[in-house]
């Protein structure tokens, strides 16, 4: 089997599995006051320090969450609410048009249900949010903006945004800036303090850690209105018993992937470049999307004209090659990718995509396997075609 879907999730690093399983059978709530509690608390706090070192922030700025989606929700909603409560003029939320659904949907919800105004920042044709586009979205008078959120590295096409350049734009207006960095830590040397953001989301299972754990890095001066109320854990931002085994495993994975980053990036980007070259040789009409530089080392994303992405995925799956049409979808009906649409692709192209995302365990034989089975998959998928979309409404 060739697993080329590491942007969806990564296999856990053996060191992370060992760290996690060791703690699973031990008693101790990190909030308890006895010896077992203190031991668990120590594991959590040491992990907090390791996470902070890995992403360039202070340990007090690390708030553990149940994953990237929760971190994004806390940031987007929590900052928007807090800012509006302090200054009622701040009723606008500004976000990139290429955001992951974990930002896209909370932003849309704030607009639909919470009385905020929403401005989407236009993407360029490579999936990049430029300072010019941000300026245009902010408009002449950005004093009504409560929070800006822009993804650090796009989960579908792998384009890396220059967050430091974007926060230059918002700094003069004192606007809070959040970035979804979930795809980034394994591939980019993140330094929270240099990005100029006040909040940044990261996730465990994208870096060889477990599912269900992540963190929101929040600067000391950034306040959020909590989504979850309870025991007041995690600076009162995120109540709930801390998951010590998952936190330790997350910190272990993040630390190891940071230590090995230079070597992994060099090896994986060479494999990725080989994949891209050979895919284009097989399918000269395929379009390699996204940024050519400023791109995640593990991402290769294509439009295969005339092939439904779903058809290709199924055919490759049957041959033991696992990839994705873009971001994973749980809503039942696959939709054309909003990221591709934001980049200017039409409906057909936005449904004719495949994402190959490599990881630390990817080998040359995985790429060879893909190249071996891709030609017949493309041929069959082309025969099946891309059915047209109709949008005629039926009145409910």
């Amino acid at each position: 089997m060739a697993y080329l879907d590491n942007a969806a999730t990564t296999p856990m690093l053996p060191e992370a599995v060992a760290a996690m399983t060791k703690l699973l059978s031990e008693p101790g709530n990190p909030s308890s006051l006895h010896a077992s509690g203190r031991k668990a608390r120590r594991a959590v706090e040491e992990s907090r320090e390791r996470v902070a070192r890995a992403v360039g922030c202070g340990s007090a700025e690390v708030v553990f969450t149940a994953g990237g989606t929760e971190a994004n929700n806390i940031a987007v909603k929590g900052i928007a609410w807090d800012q509006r409560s302090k200054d009622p003029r701040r009723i606008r939320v500004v976000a990139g048009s290429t955001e992951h659904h974990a930002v896209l949907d909370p932003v849309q919800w704030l607009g639909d249900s919470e009385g905020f105004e929403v401005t989407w920042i236009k993407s360029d044709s490579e999936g990049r949010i430029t300072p010019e586009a941000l300026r245009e979205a902010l408009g002449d008078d950005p004093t009504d903006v409560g929070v800006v959120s822009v993804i650090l590295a796009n989960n579908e096409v792998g384009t890396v945004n220059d967050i430091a350049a974007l926060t230059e734009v918002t700094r003069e207006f004192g606007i809070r800036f959040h970035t979804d960095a979930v795809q980034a830590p394994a591939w980019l040397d993140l330094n929270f303090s240099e990005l100029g953001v006040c909040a940044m989301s990261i996730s465990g299972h994208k870096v060889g850690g477990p599912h269900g754990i992540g963190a929101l890095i929040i600067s000391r001066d950034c306040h959020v209105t909590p989504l979850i109320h309870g025991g007041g854990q995690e600076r009162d931002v995120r109540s709930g018993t801390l998951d010590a085994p998952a936190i330790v495993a997350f910190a272990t994975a993040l630390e190891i992937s940071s230590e090995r980053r230079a070597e992994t990036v060099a090896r994986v980007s060479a494999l990725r470049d080989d994949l891209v070259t050979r895919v284009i040789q097989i399918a000269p009409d395929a379009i390699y999307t996204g940024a050519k530089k400023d791109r995640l080392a593990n991402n290769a994303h294509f439009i295969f004209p005339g092939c439904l992405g779903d058809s290709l995925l199924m055919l490759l799956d049957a041959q033991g090659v696992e990839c994705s049409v873009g971001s994973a979808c749980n809503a039942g009906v696959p939709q054309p990718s909003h990221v591709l649409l934001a980049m200017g692709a039409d409906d057909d192209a936005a449904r004719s995509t495949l994402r190959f995302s490599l990881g630390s365990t990817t080998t040359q034989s995985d790429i060879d396997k893909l190249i071996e089975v891709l030609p017949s998959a493309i041929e069959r998928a082309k025969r099946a075609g891309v059915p047209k979309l109709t949008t005629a409404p039926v009145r409910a």
Partner: protein
Amino acid sequence: MRVLAALSGGVDSAVAAARAVDAGHDVTAVHLALSRNPQSHRTGARGCCTIEDSNDAFRAADMLGAPFYVWDLSSEFQEKVIEDFISEYAAGRTPNPCLRCNESIKFEAVLERAMALGFDAVVTGHYAQIFQGENGPELHRAVDPLKDQSYVLGVLTADQIAHSMFPLGDSTKVEVRAEADRRGILVAAKPDSHDICFIPDGDTAGWLSRQIDSVPGVVVDAETGNKVGTHAGAHAFTVGQRRGLALGNPTGDGERRYVVDVDVKNNVVMVGPPVLLDIDLIETIKPRWAGPVPASGSRIHVQIRAHGDALPATLHIGDDGSITIQLDEYLRGLAAGQAAVLYDGTRVIGSATVSRSRRSASV
């Protein structure tokens, strides 16, 4: 064979797929997403395409060890089934959307895509049987008369039948449920779906009234030509309908009046005594043959409703290929748009869409 099992999330398609696995086929499962905005949960026995159904289909596939995918057919369904349903009603006809779905979606869009992707056949949970006859595969009624679905498969062509598998045709529903239970299929007790899947509340008239602009018009006595009432929109009426006419003055003989014709062009609903509904000559359009075309003058049976009787008749085929059906006895109430499915014993010969029906001089 490499076969594609269409799993609705219900009992029948799950057992059908399980039987295909048992028969040694390499089975891949798909759930057809027919709605762009599916509801998250089923409410009652209506509807078919909730996320819960998709999850049930996933679990059934999982138990069979079959890879599972969701195929988005919502655009095709919208265009070929829902819009066709609306335009047929708007034209004063009474369509059968399940037939249209089989014709355009399950055994056309899905089958064609499956064949292109390298599958040999599509397997579904329909109750019908396919036998190898002298002239190729034949479509026959299921053994369970209560569940027989050969009528809604009457639109299948010989080529489509050749690439279809209906593993449930030799079983009764009771047997299939018991088998699902025995196999541990979690949806064994799930109720059958009923009615029209895209009208979840079952209120077809109400739903149609939101899709078609209603123009009030007159109700006319078919025998006298006199105006006897008004209506809120002709499309809401079907030939044979009695309820909802709200006619003030009854007929002279006190007999109940029925809709005998719907003239959408002039926005007139014609009513009359039930005897005017008695017809024996059926003119049709869009013939589709399940095998060799029979000789004109053949004695056949015709079925004009999903669970209607098979009526003895004589088939006449015109020089242009059009089908006219002469019934042996009068039939009460047949609306244009309904499908006439033709049988030779248990074998489906073909089907056609009713365009007009009347009383012949010969009976």
